[in-house]
């Protein structure tokens, strides 16, 4: 398996760097399926005859494993190079589906936890960070845009997986609209076949990424790009900090806090999007004016906002700076939450616009993080540092739903409430974002005592990528 080694993936002179984003996207579009698990959730509840929580645990395990594997495998990913790590991610992600399928076919839920949750979750974590540092090395002139492109794929993966899974489930079940109707729920057998099919498709698509990823040659830089210009910006270092030292800095934990609060606040809307829009718009007789199908359209629009925000805001950060863009995510996000809380119920257009902008900031926060880390800590072990930062996502994945569900439970049952019932939870999100805004303003350049002495700028030029 020597072809997986970093040395075998070195790009030849003249290699076109625009071949790298599709290779990275091939991985992120596949692992982004994790956001589309709701498609077969009801089918699994019926198949295993268990509660919503028992099925929700599958996704929770996967997200926790994403954070843990990214944190603990980050240094290995950095050392092994993108090709080997993407291959390992493809093996874990693909086999996670296959083991999950075995669990569905044999009626053993623990196998689905082990397969999709544990094994697949490891694939998620390794796959998420694998191409990121490589992309930043290929696009040192536009690192935000480069990482935005890849991480956009994670948001876009659900947009593909959701309709694809529905179409496959209907095919496997022999769906007949005249017989099955609007309330059709797929059989467990169809979900098992779906897992088998997705496992194979995703493995093959990810192999395209494995075969086509390249690392730039030592000392490579884009033609016509003057890397000495980055010296003029105080918040962008030309020095390097190791992953072990990065977590000892105040900057890392401020960024961790910022990402944690931004993700937690985003989950506030994502978690309750469908019942929330129905509760906000009710006729005088108490019946919602928003049907379930229209609410599903709103959820889809949020997915597009999430994906677009990852690319657009992260690209914009190359121009206006990382610190300022995070202040925008958190500051403007807080204002939009206030507007949503007090005026959202008055206009559908205003409600949708505020929600989509908030979710675009949520996505932007994810996509801008690697470029911010590169600015603060250099490229030396930025992938490993990114992996450690993603534990904030895992923590938010637990804290966000706990906060939102806890506050909403005190108000009533989502889907039967009014706009006013959402005010406490929305204002809580405002408070979280304000704290995040303050944390963001406190980020300063990393102290020189944390820099790697043998990797100071002059030496780095020789060591290259």
């Amino acid at each position: 398996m020597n072809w997986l080694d970093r040395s075998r993936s070195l790009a030849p002179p003249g290699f076109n760097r625009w071949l790298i984003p599709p290779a990275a996207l091939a991985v992120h579009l596949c692992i982004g399926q994790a956001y589309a698990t709701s498609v077969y959730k009801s089918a699994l509840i019926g198949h295993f005859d268990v509660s919503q929580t028992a099925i929700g645990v599958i996704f929770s395990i996967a997200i926790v494993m994403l954070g843990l594997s990214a944190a603990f495998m980050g240094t290995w990913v950095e050392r092994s190079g993108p090709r080997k790590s993407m291959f390992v991610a493809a093996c874990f992600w693909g086999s996670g589906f296959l083991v999950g399928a075995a669990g569905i076919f044999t009626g053993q839920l623990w196998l689905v936890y082990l397969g999709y949750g544990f094994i697949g979750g490891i694939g998620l974590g390794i796959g998420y960070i694998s191409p990121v540092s490589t992309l930043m090395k290929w696009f040192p002139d536009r690192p935000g845009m480069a990482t935005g492109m890849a991480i956009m794929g994670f948001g876009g993966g659900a947009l593909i997986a959701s309709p694809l899974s529905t179409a496959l489930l209907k095919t496997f079940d022999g769906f007949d609209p005249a017989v099955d109707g609007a309330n059709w729920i797929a059989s467990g057998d169809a979900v098992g076949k779906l897992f088998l099919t997705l496992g194979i498709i995703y493995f093959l698509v990810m192999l395209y990424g494995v075969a086509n990823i390249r690392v730039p040659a030592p000392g490579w830089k884009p033609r016509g790009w003057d890397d000495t210009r980055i010296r003029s910006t105080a918040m962008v270092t030309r020095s390097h900090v190791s992953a072990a030292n990065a977590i000892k800095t105040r900057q890392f934990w401020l960024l961790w806090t910022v990402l944690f609060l931004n993700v937690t606040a985003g989950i506030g809307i994502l978690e309750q999007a469908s019942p929330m829009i129905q509760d906000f718009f009710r006729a005088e007789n108490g019946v919602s004016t928003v049907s379930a199908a229209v609410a599903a359209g709103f959820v889809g629009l949020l997915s597009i906002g999430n994906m677009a925000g990852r690319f657009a805001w992260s690209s914009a950060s190359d121009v206006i700076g990382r610190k300022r863009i995070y202040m925008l995510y958190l500051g403007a996000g807080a204002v939009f939450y206030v507007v949503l809380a007090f005026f959202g119920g008055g206009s559908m257009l205003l409600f949708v616009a505020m929600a989509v902008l908030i979710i675009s900031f949520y996505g932007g926060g994810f996509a801008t993080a690697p470029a911010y880390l590169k600015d603060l800590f250099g490229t030396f072990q930025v992938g490993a540092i990114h992996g450690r930062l993603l534990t904030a996502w895992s923590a938010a994945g637990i804290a966000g739903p706990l906060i939102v569900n806890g506050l909403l439970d005190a108000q009533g049952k989502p889907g039967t409430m009014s706009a006013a019932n959402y005010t406490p939870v929305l204002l809580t999100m405002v408070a979280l974002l304000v704290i995040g805004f303050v944390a963001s303003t406190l980020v300063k350049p990393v102290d020189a005592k944390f820099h790697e002495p043998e990797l100071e700028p002059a030496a780095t030029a020789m060591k290259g990528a």
Partner: protein
Amino acid sequence: MSTQEQEAFEPAASGGTSDPYDVPVDRAPLRLAFGWLLVGAPLVYGIITTLSRVGQLFQ
């Protein structure tokens, strides 16, 4: 590298250079088209499918 890809090289920078990596960029059009199509086509399918449901929001 295919002949077609070799022909797609950008013209060499004038004046020559001592930097081994400052060489013309291989545009690799076929590989580029295939790669972007592989990731772009499903993404466009997903966006169009989703947008088709979004229209109902404002009806």
